[in-house]
């Protein structure tokens, strides 16, 4: 007992030390409800037995472990992911293994349309397979990984630095983008994410910077020989609007143009092969630039873009913008301003140390406040993952493919957000008639065992089949942790008299048999389970 107490206190000290000296750190509560809350925000919901496991090590210690994901053994999930061959491949290998159009060899009918040619290879060799494997991997990890907070942050940062898989070359770059830039820094430093995305082929391609040149550049050879090229503002604008300052961060159209000039020459070497970042001085605009009042003298070369990134990283609007998004993800659709200010202060004090900001978040009373509990509507991805976890389901790669399709039907196709804003993190974007039905249908498919690759054993939940009231109570505890509202409880209790839920034996004398699967679907499709 006392040893555990010491552990908790030590962990709290660690928490407090990271949270900077801006606010006295209150002790996070550690009751069951608080653990459920933490699991719903810092993980993709509780699995059976998770509350006890967290309690055993202490909530504060569990949070600290989640902040150090490399120390968590995740070999089980790695074994599942090993069945998805594209995940470890380099961009060059992906181009080779999933060619955009297979060569027209002798066996190809010369009349074949590009579409027919594309469909010649088996499905597992087509480029779209790269994206499907990425989607499957994200769901497998969200459900099975021990490194839950890291997974939450991968989702968060990918969405923040969104790229759209369907745009041109992006699908061959996607694997590396998430594996080599987003994931390694998901709990690291914001500046590394900023620099990593700025120089990755996926972002260079998605926001067109790879094509942006000084206004007077005319190529002397190649397909565009003799045609004047010039500036492309796309990346410059979204870099400030969406990645750093925020749309109200105080920049002007002039700043957009100047930033675009600074990034001329940041392009992709051998885009259809190994695809690496390269700086090409020939197309760079060497002239002087003035950005947000800062003069960048002529001749800075690649240093121009680096100075811009540094300027944006240290701009107070960036700290504020990132803090707002973090608080919206972890606390509420309407971020409490005082908390945003504290997290922004942590950003400024630590140069965007993500762990420090997360510590500030979980050390805040706002994070644990009653009004924050179940205040967020789960995004489709979160809903799907949390439902499979709640019923103790295990998944293989095949399940990942199927689950990704369900999330897409609810409106969140992974890697499928076309605009650079990514997907919204607010309730009203996800709650609508068609999507709600899709959620209910998913709940039915899950509990009725219709999802390929999902291994589900509902028998621990169904031990009370013969006693409907006890069966329902068990479900409410397991899936909603007893937090069902009175009306929901009443509706579900009334269902117990439904002959299709409570089935009598033919002679009407034997014990009742409760359709626990359908009852579980109702709970997972209920208003309460849509929240986290």
């Amino acid at each position, binding site marked *: 007992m006392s040893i555990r107490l010491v552990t908790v206190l030590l962990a709290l000290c660690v928490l407090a030390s990271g949270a900077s000296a801006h606010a006295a750190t209150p002790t996070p509560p550690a009751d069951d409800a608080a653990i459920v809350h933490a699991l719903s925000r810092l993980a993709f919901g509780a699995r059976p037995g998770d509350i006890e496991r967290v309690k055993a090590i202490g909530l504060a210690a569990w949070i600290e472990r989640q902040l150090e994901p490399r120390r968590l053994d995740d070999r089980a999930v790695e074994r599942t992911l090993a069945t998805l061959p594209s995940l470890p491949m380099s961009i060059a290998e992906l181009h080779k293994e999933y060619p955009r159009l297979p060569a027209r060899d002798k066996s190809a009918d010369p009349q074949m349309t590009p579409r027919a040619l594309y469909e010649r290879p088996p499905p597992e060799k087509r480029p779209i397979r790269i994206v499907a494997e990425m989607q499957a991997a994200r769901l497998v990890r969200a459900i099975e990984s021990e490194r839950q907070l890291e997974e939450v942050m991968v989702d968060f940062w990918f969405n923040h630095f969104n790229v759209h898989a369907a745009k041109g070359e992006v699908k061959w770059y996607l694997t590396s983008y998430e594996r080599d830039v987003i994931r390694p820094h998901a709990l690291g430093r914001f500046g590394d994410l900023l620099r990593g995305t700025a120089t990755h082929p996926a972002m260079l391609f998605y926001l067109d910077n790879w094509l942006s040149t000084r206004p007077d550049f005319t190529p002397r050879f190649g397909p565009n020989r003799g045609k004047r090229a010039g500036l492309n503002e796309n990346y410059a604008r979204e870099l400030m609007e*969406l990645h750093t300052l925020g749309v109200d961060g105080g920049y002007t159209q002039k700043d957009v143009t100047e930033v675009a000039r600074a990034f001329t020459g940041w392009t992709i070497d051998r885009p259809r092969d190994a695809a690496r970042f390269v700086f090409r001085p020939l197309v760079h605009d060497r002239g002087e630039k003035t950005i947000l009042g800062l003069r960048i003298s002529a001749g800075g070369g690649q240093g121009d873009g680096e100075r811009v990134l540094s300027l944006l990283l240290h701009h107070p609007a960036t700290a504020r913008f990132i803090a707002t998004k973090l608080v919206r993800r972890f606390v509420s659709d309407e971020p409490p301003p005082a908390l945003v200010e504290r997290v922004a202060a942590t950003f400024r004090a630590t140069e965007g140390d993500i762990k420090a900001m997360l510590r500030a978040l979980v050390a805040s009373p706002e994070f644990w406040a009653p009004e924050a509990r179940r205040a967020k509507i789960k995004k489709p991805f979160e809903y799907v993952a949390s439902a499979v976890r709640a019923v103790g389901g295990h998944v293989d790669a095949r399940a990942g493919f199927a689950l990704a399709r369900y999330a897409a039907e609810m409106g969140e196709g992974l890697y499928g957000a076309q605009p650079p804003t990514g997907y919204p993190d607010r309730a009203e974007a996800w709650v609508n008639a068609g999507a*709600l*039905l899709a959620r209910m249908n998913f709940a039915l498919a899950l509990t009725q065992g219709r999802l390929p690759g999902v291994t589900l054993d509902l028998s621990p939940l169904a031990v009370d089949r013969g006693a409907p009231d006890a069966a329902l109570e068990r479900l409410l505890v397991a899936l909603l942790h007893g937090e069902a509202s009175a*009306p929901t409880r009443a509706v579900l209790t009334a269902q117990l008299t439904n002959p299709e839920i409570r089935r009598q034996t033919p002679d009407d004398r034997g014990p009742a048999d409760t359709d626990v699967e359908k009852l579980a679907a109702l709970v997972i499709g209920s208003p309460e389970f849509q929240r986290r």
Partner: protein
Amino acid sequence: MTMPMLTRRALLKGGACALAAVAAPPRFLARAALAADARRKVLVAVFQRGAVDGLSMVVPYGDRDYAGARASIAIRAPQAGDAGAAVDLDGFFGLHPALAPLAALWQSRTLAVVHACGSPDTTRSHFDAQDYMESGTPGVKSTPDGWLARAAVTQPSPTSPFRAVALGPTLPRALRGDAGAISLASLDRFDVRATSEAAAARQGFESLYAQSVHDLLHGTGRETFEAVRMLKRANASRLAPANNAEYPRSRLGQSLRQIAQLIRADVGLEIAFTDADGWDTHVGQGAEQGQLAARLRDFGASLTAFTQDLGDRMSDVIVLTMSEFGRTVAENGNRGTDHGHATAMLLLGGGVRGGKVYGRWPGLARERLYEGRDLAVTTDFRALFAEVAGRQLGIANPVSLFPGWTGGPQLGVLS
């Protein structure tokens, strides 16, 4: 609020009778008059997300600064025998050749264009500009609801759960609010599906959301099940496209196909919304052929199929297209265009005074451009939206749909 609607219907009947006296009226007018009381007027909004290049969609080939600003992406001016060039509209503007199927609607005066239309706000952010256009409040982010949702709630008529519908996986900002608008991606899949006893599951879910809790989830849930029941009765998805209409398989084509099904099934649809994306052509926009041409071809074919499918019923329907802003007048370094200001919006259907390009043309000479680079806005999008919503939905004071706006001059796009 019901008065203008009755008046309009009375006029419609009267008009048909008057026509009958002099000559055999077009069949659709007679039928429209007969069914006017059972049928509602429908406004279909199509949002071109990503900022469509209005200068390529409706080409101001007669502007002497047009071609010079766009060395590789300008659309060729109409010329006899050149099927690949712009399709002439009025001697100054032409339709992009990929929109050629719409020319028939122009000829029959059911298609109008409002050019140099856009927002008074200066933003070139897709997200903010879409937000402003959908909330109907340029520059104000705190507006809680969308302008189409506000339009829907001004209607006191007996409401159907299908009064306001968005086709797509999410409810657009324009329809968020108290209108009880629903969104759905597919009519076929709009129900509870279970291996057995789906009815029991449906009833169970319905009761869970039927509680009188006033939050987003419960409200949406209640409307959902009302809609599911109604759609089951109407069986709209059985209606195959009429008049040999062939919809593209694209998302826009399939959305419009299903909107037509809802209209033909008489489920009480008044406002429909869908969007089409892929307009953010920073690179390799193309001219008569290419990336933008492919998007426009789909756009034109989808709209054409829709009008063909609805046939006579189009007399009750207006399609209004919109986009958050236009694109730079000059092409950029990648034979594309960057974010600009004004664009062109299309209006087609019954009651449209078509065959005309509305709005003052500001010109493309450099000194006429907004911030020296973009087509200037001469028609506030709110003026167009207000006029269309007012007439088509019978809203007496449509200016009130746009808080903070005092109204503008009438365009006269509707008869």
